[in-house]
């Protein structure tokens, strides 16, 4: 009892879920810095101020400070609040996703409309990515669904889930199939952990497979009807990426380029070569500080470093599950499991992509990749996890 009360009085009652993510964030900052150094040479001209050259790192540090603040704040909010307001957050999340389709509110980069641009004095344009927050909201929603609702077919449950699906469709149309799939996996995974019947889950999976096939092949079929061979269709890039994954070296001139470059970077790392900041291939990686940060880590720290990062990720996931088993409420248990799924699956997919096991999708590596919205959402999620820990027995 004594230990318990001492714990609940602490700022973070579950220390591993504070220190491990912080360590990963710091590792991320180090390698984002390394990528920024590489980019100075890449841009061909010296940037006017260090602030422009290292903007990514500076912004990430700010977001990290913000995230830590949010974490300590949310650690003190009772989980009942989240359980009660899950529906509200779902509505808000879907609305923010739909706002992206209103021209003028959103910002497009590389033909993807994923960001809300927010002008902040002194920092320029700060980009917010609602789909990152939607991951957290998904955790809330399914935790609520499987902890509060008694009947599956209630109006709230069906209506909310339909809204959730609308959000996923919105994300897929950004287009961001990777995030959409991850969110589906987190949702379905939580349903599984929440005790959904296996038969229903199987039916859902079959439907999901059909939906994914539809998303992949519909543009191809449309193009074929117009008489274009599928290799040349712009809209068929998803299928092309999957084909390229099978043999990236064959497609290295176009779709397979990123994969080949990433594999070269990872392979250059060797067992424990190079050294931090010494990477060469990082300059050739697209979005090296973000989607492909793992390749940079692998190049600069070798096999030892890569395994370390994977192990740290594994520890975070383990502690999320462990927290889930200790939670005093079912909602808390499901939030913990949801975080584990979210962090674990993101890390698996991101690293799998970087080392050529999965096709190219734009998912960040949790805590490590540059990206404020993702970091803030994760930190908020961990803050709630701390609240769950505070309430445990």
């Amino acid at each position: 009892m004594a230990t318990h009360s001492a714990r609940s009085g602490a700022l973070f009652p579950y220390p591993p879920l504070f220190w491990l993510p912080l360590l990963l964030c710091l590792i991320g900052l180090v390698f984002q810095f390394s990528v920024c150094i590489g980019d100075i040479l890449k841009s061909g001209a010296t940037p006017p101020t260090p602030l422009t050259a290292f903007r990514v790192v500076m912004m990430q540090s700010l977001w990290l400070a913000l995230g830590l603040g949010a974490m300590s704040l949310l650690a003190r909010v009772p989980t009942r609040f989240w359980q009660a307001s899950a529906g509200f957050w779902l509505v808000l999340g879907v609305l923010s996703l739909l706002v992206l389709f209103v021209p003028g509110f959103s910002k497009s980069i590389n033909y993807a409309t994923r960001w809300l641009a927010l002008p902040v004095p002194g920092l320029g344009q700060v980009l917010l990515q609602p789909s990152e927050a939607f991951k957290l909201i998904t955790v809330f929603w399914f935790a609520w669904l499987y902890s509060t609702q008694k009947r599956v077919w209630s109006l709230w449950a069906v209506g909310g889930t339909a809204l959730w699906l609308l959000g996923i469709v919105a994300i897929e149309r950004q287009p961001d199939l990777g995030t959409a799939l991850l969110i589906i996996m987190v949702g379905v995974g939580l349903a599984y952990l929440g005790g959904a019947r296996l038969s229903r889950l199987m039916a859902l999976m079959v439907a999901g497979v059909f939906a994914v096939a539809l998303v992949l092949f519909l543009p191809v079929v449309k193009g074929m009807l117009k008489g274009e061979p599928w290799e040349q269709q712009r809209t068929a890039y998803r299928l092309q990426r999957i084909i390229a994954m099978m043999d990236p070296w064959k497609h290295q001139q176009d779709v397979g380029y990123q994969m080949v470059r990433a594999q070269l970077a990872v392979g250059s790392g060797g067992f424990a070569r190079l050294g931090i900041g010494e990477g060469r291939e990082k300059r050739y990686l697209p979005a090296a500080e973000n989607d492909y940060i793992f390749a940079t880590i692998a190049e600069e720290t070798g096999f030892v470093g890569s395994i370390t990062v994977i192990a740290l990720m594994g520890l975070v996931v383990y502690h999320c599950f462990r927290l889930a088993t200790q939670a005093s409420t079912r909602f808390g248990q499901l939030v913990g499991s949801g975080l584990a799924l979210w962090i674990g699956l993101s890390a698996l997919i991101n690293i799998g992509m970087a080392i050529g096991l999965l096709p190219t999708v734009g998912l960040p590596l949790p805590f490590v990749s540059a990206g404020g919205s993702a970091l803030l959402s994760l930190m908020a999620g961990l803050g709630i996890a701390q609240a769950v820990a505070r309430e445990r027995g």
Partner: protein
Amino acid sequence: MKGRPQNSVRTLKLRQQDLARMRFAGGLMVLGGGFLCTRLAQLQIVQAKELRHIAERRRWRGRPLLALRGAIYDRHGKPLARTVMNYHVVIDPASVQEPWQVARWLTRHLGGNPKELEQTIRERKARGARYLLVKRSAPPHQVDPLLKEYRALPFRERPVILDTEQVPAREYPHSQLAPQVVGLTRLEGERDEGFRLAPQGGVEEAMEAVLAGENGIVQGEVAPGGLMIPETILQRTLPKDGRSVRLTLDLAIQESAELALDELWKRHRPLRALALVIDPHTGDLLAVANRPTTDLATRKGLEKSWEPMRNLAVNFLYEPGSTIKPLVVAWALERGLVRLNEPFRCAGSIAIGRRRVGCSAHGGGRKAHGTQTVEEVLANSCNVATAQIGLRLSLEGVYAVFERFHLLGRTEINLTGVERGYALKPSEIRYGREIRTANWAFGQGLMITPLALTASYAILANEGVYRPPRLVIEPAPVAVRPAEPVLSPENCRTVLRGLVHAVEEGTGKEARLPGYWVAGKTGTAQKANPKGGYIKGRYIASFVGIVPADRPRAVIMVLADEPTNGYYGGEVAAPAFRQIAQFLMWYWKVPPNRTTATTLPRRPERWTNEPRTG
């Protein structure tokens, strides 16, 4: 969970099913992690060496460091040609998302038609090309703002992948002066081995070894965008810039020669024309102007033929005609075969063997010059008397004139396309040796270059000493040919006096210059037919003059091939000569020393026998 203390406060009992499912999900993730670790081991341990080699090979580049080609200056150091660094602007068409925007942006900086560029970009993009040369050799003032704008954009927001390749280019501050002497260059090579300027004619080609320089190389790994990663540079050989060349040309004189030829061109529309100015004491070529001509910067007129780049001074063979006579007379005086006051009779024609040679060249019908002195022979340009003098020298003697005055063979000068003057060797001539002697004596039956003839007149102006013509002052040649005395100064003065007569009273009156003594000789040669004989009605009009005759400063030759509106050397070439000579006197501030405006003292010995002081 087993180790948990029993007294813990748990309001929720963990369901067995939940725990099992959590374990299953966790197990799946561990399995995924296992896959990752296996794959990492494959990439970073098994294939590491291979992949690292591939990556290094891809990043490895050898980059040329361009050498600057030396500049070409006139004698006062004014630039005729110099090297600047320009840029080829290239883009990756596949990276263009909005061809119209990109085309408009590029053409705004580089010039050109945006619609055409857009079309090209679309075509190349459709073909999957990754390289498109948007603009060749764009100057820095166009490229710098373009790059500044481009680099100001964040990497991912750039509308196109753009690159520049440094290329050397020639800049011509005086592109219309002496283009045939300067010559052109062509851009050769490619990005990886280094661009260089290959010479095309003129001094550029003749002095290639001095001007060219040598490209250097740097080898290392490159970052995207093309910059070398500093810590990876393994080898660097610095470029050796070419040395500059200082010519003997004087741009002011060159310009006056060009202007004089413009006048001549307007008035007589010849096929081609030449003006040549030589300093007789050094052999320096002060001006070489040619028509037709071009502009080095715009290369106007070079699309169809290379003719405007032809340097007639060395790349043109013609029969000199009467202009050879002073040389024959001078050599006869030198050999003592002709005395100063000896009378030569001209009855209008003379029989040589079975042929007759007449003084019919000027004035239409046959005209007898009567009794003349040597000086008057030159003034009258009398064929009959020259033939007699030639016959005294004999065939070998006249051939010796050609050799001693360096008319035959190739003139050694730093130019390309130098023609070789020629005449049959006396030993090869079996029949008609006498008529050949007479013909040679008044300039028929031999082909020489205008430069050789001008240089031989410089002997007369330089007190009988031959100076080989020179075009390059710096770098100075390793071995200088010694000055070679050909005539005695007295005989030179005698011939000059005759040439002053020729200008004052004879065929070259148009060359007279108020205030100065001018010596000069006209030539009106029929064009030789390559198949033998002469082409009727086609002439080469020429004039070679020395100014001022009392203290020679310059030898000027003007030549017009097939002029219209008259064909005599005195009427076509002499005015151009006078124009150049007048400019020279003003330019060099030569004080006029002749008070009587036009008439010549009967024996102008006062000036000819004064020792040279200046």
